[in-house]
């Protein structure tokens, strides 16, 4: 039992990191731009495919492809926000609903694009380290899990430092916390929200690569990933970077613990039960003031 628990907790914790990095951009975009980007995970799956493609076509590890993917996805996010989101939000009677429907449609478009490009066949990323393991006492740690966790630590850490230590980051926080006040103090709301949106989509690329190290994926996978993203964001608090990190880890731990102590079929029941309790007790999430 102790071995099972230690193994499950370790695995759960590392998976929680991957869920956190997948979710942090979604949370940030929602908090700052008030846009519920339902296409977020479609971008993540697109990144997973690009990583897979880089590996199988050119032998480039997906991690090494990330430096190219990050600016590309950033620009995609900027373009999406400038050309679609902002234009729609300005004309819509209910910008929240309109942009959600818009991004839902965009997600479907991306999914169908991936279907055309890569067929519906499920894919498994097989890197040089896919089968590597690390023995820590009785616990076996899978290298892909560890790398996904590392990606999460680096990405979330960088985002946190950006919002805490840079002028632009502080502007982003200001827009998130009090848009009107930020505008009155001279912050260009459009510019800040567009940059934040670009960064959010760029983190989707990291999240997609991290998830692809752990899971199979196909063009429709984004919908199942989105369930976990919602869970992380609601638990962590909309817009909270550290909240996403904490929520991802907590969810991973809950999955690990419940896998040992309750039947596996109850895992989701435990998770979503927790969500309901949390919404009743703290509707703003764990780390949102």
């Amino acid at each position, binding site marked *: 039992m102790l*071995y*099972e628990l230690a*193994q*499950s907790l370790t*695995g*759960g914790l590392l*998976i929680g990191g991957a869920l956190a990095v997948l979710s942090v951009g979604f949370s940030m975009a*929602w908090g700052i731009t008030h846009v*519920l980007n*339902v296409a977020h995970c479609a971008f993540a799956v697109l990144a997973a495919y690009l990583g897979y493609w880089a590996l199988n076509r050119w032998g480039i590890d997906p991690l090494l492809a990330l430096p190219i993917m990050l600016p590309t996805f950033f620009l995609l996010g900027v373009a999406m926000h400038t050309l679609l989101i902002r234009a729609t939000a300005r004309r819509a009677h209910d910008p*929240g609903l309109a942009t*959600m429907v818009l991004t839902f449609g965009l997600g479907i478009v991306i999914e169908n694009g991936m279907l055309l490009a890569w*067929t*519906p*066949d*499920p*894919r*498994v990323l*097989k890197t040089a380290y*896919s*089968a590597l*393991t690390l023995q820590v006492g009785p616990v*076996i740690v*899978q290298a892909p899990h560890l790398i996904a966790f590392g990606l999460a630590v680096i990405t979330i850490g960088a985002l946190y430092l950006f919002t805490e230590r840079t002028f632009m980051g502080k502007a982003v926080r200001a827009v*998130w*916390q009090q848009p009107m006040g930020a505008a009155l103090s001279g912050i260009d709301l459009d510019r800040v929200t567009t940059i934040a949106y670009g960064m959010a989509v760029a983190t989707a690329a990291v999240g997609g690569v991290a998830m692809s190290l*752990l*899971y*199979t994926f*196909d063009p*429709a*996978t984004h*919908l*199942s*990933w*989105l*369930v*976990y993203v*919602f*869970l992380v*964001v*609601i638990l962590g608090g*909309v*817009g909270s970077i550290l909240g996403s990190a904490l929520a991802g880890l907590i969810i991973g731990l809950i*999955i*690990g613990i419940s*896998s*040992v102590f309750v*039947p*596996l*079929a109850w*895992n*989701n029941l435990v998770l979503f039960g927790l969500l309901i309790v949390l*919404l009743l007790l703290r*509707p*703003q999430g764990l780390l*949102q003031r």
Partner: protein
Amino acid sequence: MTHHTSRRQMLWAMLGAWIVALAVGACGQAPAAPAAPTTAPTAPTTAPAAPTTAPAAPQGAPIKIGCSLPLTGAFADTGVWVQRGYEQWAEDVNAAGGLLGRPVELTIYDDESKTENAVNLLNRVISVDQADLLCGGYPGTAAAAQMAVAEKNQKVYVSMGGHMASFSQGFTYVFGAPPLMGQWWYEGLYGWLASLPEAERPKKAAIFTINNPVGAAILEPMPEKLSALGIEIVVNERYDVPLTDAAPLVTKAKGAEADIFFANGFFPDSVQIVKAMRALDYNPKLIAQGVGSIIPAWVEELGADGYYVFSGTAVHPSLPFEGISRLNEVARAKYNAPVAPIYFIFGYAWMQALQRGVEGAQTLDQTAIRDWLKSNQITTVAGTFTFDERGLPPPYNYLTQVIDGKVELIWPPEVRTKEPIYPKPAWGQ
């Protein structure tokens, strides 16, 4: 941010999560299950509809045959192969002089992988198009729903069905020829295990089953069947998909010292399980997998880690039945496929079953066709079948094993294409 705004956002979140959960749930309801049968139908002896001589051209008004298939959407990849099987059959029949001397004309609507569309379209085929004959739908959820429509309208309906539940409704016009039965999935495995000396059989089984109707159908007979083989079930759990972490499943099986591991799931979750088994160095004597290991992606994506896994199938391109090799050639020539895909064979076989009924009854009268099929043996590219009052043949399924990157037939012995590898070699060997 105000408390009011926060609550509003939470409401949006719940709405969004609900929509996503619905969408994911809908996707998971009707998995694109590849076929997996087990004990063998008798080897067919008569030829399929491959024309050899130059028969008289069909004459008269065409016989209209209609149905719907998922030609777009989640199940399109498989649905298109069923369509190709139907079309190949129609081409062959017309080239061989037609059905009852008349040409056949297929009308296949696209139900967009939605069960409600499948039902509406079959009603349209019957009442608006007034088709003479029906062809079956796909996947199991659509077929099960259409079976009720066909029965209500007293139309013969040949398809894979929707597992045993769909054939237990008291319907009399439905046939599985062959069916896709989760309950029969491991029939071949049970047969082969029974052939092993008792000392060589696995002793302890760990069973992990996907929490959906397909998984439930596969799991249903397992306790009784394994008990009869003297195999104790030490772990028996269901899991939801997406499977977040496969390691707990593997550690449970490893902790219980199970030497036969059943992963009764689909491709994504089973891949995760196999990867976790390798990572945690858990190497039971036998790994049996539900739906997933017989599709090409299994070997393409998992490589050697996916070898030696056992599964089942109801049809297979290497079966020694007449007409299969020709379908393999057609698939190669027309569609650039290495062999005839399973659902290409399925589609062809279902239409052959219908054809046998019409030719046997010598009429398009639905009750006469039904009665003829229920009282006669028929031969298709998928084997020779007789049907009980539910429209089902006796339970059967073939055992497969992935060996050197190919899905080989293992059981029954008369269809074996390779000797099984058992016990499973260590990972990486």
